[in-house]
């Protein structure tokens, strides 16, 4: 049955995944067995009782108490067993250990932001230690999203106006993918993030170093990193292609005309305001869909992104 499972399931990379897979494989295997049995009986019956003439005499018997009791009772036992195993694992999936490491998650169209205890944030990259339970406390800034890591077999909806949570314990260092699984608009299918699992020591090290730009990195290059990690690239191209929002290419110094007919020259102040208060001035021809980055990007981060945009002539 494990072989059967490997056709269907992705690698199991969390402590709970093994148990969920075992139940998945049990249900798949049992179902397959019963399906094959039913179909074998059907094929046998259509061969054996194929109509020979229009005067065939058929059985009038439409009851068999013993048979009916058997085929009613067996499924009851099976489903109660399956229910019970699903129930106990579900309780485990829903109950984070008290010593779990907490990370805040913000979902918004169309990116994920992760905030750590020391105040650092990492957009679209969730860094966690291996071998230690991690609890995600999640909220949405706009519509429903759902946080799903297939490799860990965990998923929970992320809801505006309410905190939800999920937890997992990654088995070993490596990478996995996060999907958004609640439909949230145009770029729903691009709302992905990466889980990066470190050893405990590496994770502590990463936490210390993740607080902003490394001292030897040029501002614009850091801005470029933020551009691809913070979800800017989902809607803004850097080669002039028109996506959900205007392209950055050649934007700086140009004049934008807004939906209300006014216009402004794209300078540092305009860009900063557009990041923090995006729907105040919406360029004509685009929908007012950008979420605010208030509380997600620091002032230094915004400076770096502006620097990056300036270089895109």
């Amino acid at each position, binding site marked *: 049955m494990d072989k059967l499972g490997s056709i*269907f*399931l*992705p690698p199991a990379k969390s402590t*709970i995944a093994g*148990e*969920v897979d075992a*139940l*998945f494989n049990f*249900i798949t295997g049992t*179902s397959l067995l*019963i399906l094959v049995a*039913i179909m074998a009986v*059907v094929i046998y*019956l*259509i061969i054996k009782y*194929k*109509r020979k003439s*229009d005067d*065939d005499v*058929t*059985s*009038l018997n*439409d*009851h*068999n108490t013993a048979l*009916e009791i058997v*085929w*009613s009772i067996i*499924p*009851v036992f099976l*489903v*109660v067993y399956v*229910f019970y195993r*699903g*129930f*106990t694992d*579900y309780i485990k999936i*829903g109950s984070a250990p008290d010593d779990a490491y907490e990370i805040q998650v913000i979902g918004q169209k169309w990116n994920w932001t992760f905030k750590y205890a020391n105040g650092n944030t990492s957009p679209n990259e969730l860094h966690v230690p291996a071998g230690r339970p991690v609890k995600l406390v999640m909220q949405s800034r706009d519509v*429903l999203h*759902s946080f*799903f890591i*297939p*490799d860990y*077999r*965990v*998923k*929970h*909806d992320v809801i*505006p*106006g*309410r905190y*939800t949570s999920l937890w997992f314990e990654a088995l070993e260092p490596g990478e996995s993918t996060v*999907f*958004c*699984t*609640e*439909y949230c*608009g*145009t770029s729903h*299918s691009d709302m992905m993030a990466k889980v990066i699992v470190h050893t405990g020591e590496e994770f502590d090290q990463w936490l210390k170093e993740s607080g902003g730009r490394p001292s030897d990195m040029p501002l614009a290059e850091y801005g470029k990193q933020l551009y691809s990690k913070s979800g800017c690239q989902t809607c803004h191209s850097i080669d002039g292609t028109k996506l959900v929002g205007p392209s950055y290419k050649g934007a700086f110094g140009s004049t934008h005309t807004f939906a209300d007919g006014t216009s402004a020259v794209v300078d540092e102040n305009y860009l900063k305001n557009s990041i923090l208060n995006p729907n105040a001035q919406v360029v004509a021809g685009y929908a007012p869909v950008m979420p605010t980055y208030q509380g997600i990007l620091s002032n230094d981060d915004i400076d770096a992104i502006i620097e990056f945009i300036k270089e895109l002539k």
Partner: protein
Amino acid sequence: MDNTTTSPNIGLKIKRFTSPDHPEVNFAQAEKGIKAWLTTIDHKKIGLMYLGSIAFFFFIGGLLALLLRLELWTPAKTFLDADAYNQVFTLHGAIMIFLVLVPSVPAALGNFFLPIMVGAKDVAFPRLNLLSFYIYLTGAFFSLYSIVTGAVDTGWTFYTPYSAQTSASVVSMTFGVFVLGFSSILTGLNFIVTIHKLRVPGLTWGKLPLFLWSIYATSVIQILATPVLAITLLLLIMERTLKIGIFDPTLGGDPVLYQHFFWFYSHPAVYIMILPGFGVISEIIGIFSKRRVFGYWFIALSSMAIALMGFLVWGHHMFVSGQSTLSSVVFSLITFFVGIPTGIKIFNWVATMYKGSISLRTPMWYALMFLFLFTIGGFTGVMLGTLSVDVHLHDTYYVVAHFHYVMMGGMLVAFLGGIHLWWPKMTGRMYNEKLANLSALLIFIGFNMTFFTQFILGAKGMPRRYYNYIDQFQSLHQFSTVGSWVLGLGFSIMLFYLLHSLGKKGVIAPKNPWGGRSLEWITQTPPVMENFEYTPVVIHGPYDFHKPIAEFEYGIEGSDSHVHDHHSDQHDNKHSVNA
């Protein structure tokens, strides 16, 4: 029996009526012209108009599905942009659910056959019936209108707060669905009254064909559940237009509340869609096994039980939505117990074939296809009802595959089985069975290629409603897309031979091509206006194939003399009330 006798159990003077296979003037010839069709109160014509509309919408919904599958040929853009893709899957879902599956068997086949099978001249309220049809068209018009005015991209579930904030024309789409709901309610009401009040003498509840039991159970759900959908959609419209905070958190509402409302209707709606399919399958397996249906009362009453229990399982759509753990656990348990009677029905149908006389004609192939596909749909439903496993599978392609196995592999295949069973009766023509069997085979292969692949995709983590996807899923997606072409080919062949049968070269069908015993096989082909030229009486059960056909042809003596005097006067139905 003599030609005229007194029935011991009915106490009426009865007489055997023999009529030629084909009437001089059938219902379609009785009134002619477009206007006669559009203003008819004849349930058969209304049924056929529903059938035509449903077939049209199925064609549109199917084309949209082919577009979706084609777009998924590559992981990034193939030929549609993201917004167009999102609009297409929304329309595909909404059209297939609300315009095709919900009305399919009850409105088309139920309308045509329910009155005939109870021996009545029409449904209890024929004018209301015509009104239902026009309400359906109005609702359909509003739904399609939204395509023109800027297309809805919320998915057919219209989840808030997205649906409350998006700029697309959600209001016209939801208003369309709201209007459609009234059509459902009125049709359900009509059917319940017809079954209660218009059965001919001798047609006791225990002699009711199982198709009618299933329509009866469906009608009960339609009346009870549809108002909740209407209320929900009305609240959604109020929120969008009047800014009253109900579901949208920025206005002080709760988005999870919407899901409770929505699934409180939409889960029972799954049974609205599937129960009539069970009824069709019972008829087909009975007739083509020439045998009493095994466990008649179990099948009849479990439909009623499923109809009522179906109201208590809506939360299994919400295991990861943020509802309480206790709710999830209770919903999971009840879900399993609703599944059991459904499973037992499968055993009953298989047992019906034991010691039968099995004839592998086209409708029977559809019934066998149903057994296979619906069983897979059922088992994967158990998988999704399992709490821990559903956390992984929820909102992935596994769910997409599951509900296509239930809705298309189950319900739509049953509907096709029903169309092939009753086509000769409805149209008076036989279709080409060789082509029909070929088409069924292609549909079976194409369906499994398309959707079994999606179980694998989903379990591997492919989320639903994804325009782009990660590269590793591409080969499975392409296989699935090729399957959709095979499906499309199968349906094209069906369209061809069904239309061909209606043409000049079509073969004339006898009145009882399969040897059925319920009343629709006793009347002429196609039936006359008001269905019978006399008032039939029922002596034997609908699956008593061991009794000679002559004993099914009795009617009340003298009831043929005044039929034409009271043309379409409903008071005339009084004498057939089963007191």
